[in-house]
């Protein structure tokens, strides 16, 4: 099997190294978001046109959303979550206290109170 000749150049490496971490992270998150939306569209069997109609947008705008370059507003993401019934934004969940943690906490607090009482 004859594979392509591998070409390495200083230019690509130096550009890759100079890209700020924040830029890399933002691009990755945007592309990941596009992939998440597309997966939901596939799962629900919606075409881009149908999704555009449901969102009240033009199909070209949906293409832009899926390009992995779009900077979404929170309102748009809420609307996408509603229409596709998916969770995109991380919402804060109520703190779940484990029963054992609670027991340990109570014991600790009682011991502290008892210690304080003994000192008096």
């Amino acid at each position, binding site marked *: 099997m004859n594979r*392509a000749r591998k070409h390495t150049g200083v230019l690509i490496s130096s550009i890759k190294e100079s890209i700020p971490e924040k830029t890399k992270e933002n*691009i990755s998150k945007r592309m990941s978001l596009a992939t998440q939306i597309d997966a939901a569209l596939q799962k629900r069997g919606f075409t881009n046109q149908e999704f555009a109609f449901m969102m009240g947008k033009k199909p070209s705008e949906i293409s832009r959303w899926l390009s992995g370059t779009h900077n979404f507003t929170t309102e748009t993401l809420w609307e996408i979550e509603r229409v596709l019934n998916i969770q995109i934004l991380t919402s804060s969940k109520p703190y779940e206290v484990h029963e054992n943690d609670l027991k340990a906490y109570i014991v600790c607090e009682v011991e502290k109170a008892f210690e304080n009482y003994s000192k008096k």
Partner: protein
Amino acid sequence: MKFEIVELSELSGSKATIYSIFVDDDNKTLFENFMIENLREFPDEINSKVETLNQISTKFGARRYFFKENEGKLGNLVCALYDSPNSNLRLYCIRFGTTVILLGGGGHKPKSIRALQESEKLKTENYLLREVSELTFRKMKEKEIYWINDYELGGDLILDTDE
């Protein structure tokens, strides 16, 4: 005119193999020339393109929706990598499924023009890639270029317009 398809080692990853093209005796690929031509004026856009390609090759694969399709003739798979918002730096490429991208050149597409034919630079770069696409498909048909492991191109990767 002679073209050689080469793999760009720094950009290829487990999800996609990225290639570019040497034209005649040029010692830079079309993609490298694109970066050199635009780095000074559009450094952020170049960074964005390189990182997007890096994410594609290592994480997401060359999914259809990351590319602006139909930038060439019908069915020749010439497309463009989507630009960052508020930027119109076009990078033309040929996407073979989600695992192989062949990068060409491109240039700035001002908001004042609609068709690529209105810019001599974009027209030249785009039509060059159309030619590469046509020659590649011809060789694929004749089984002189073939797939290796579903994510690499193999065979005779030197294309000649005089053949």
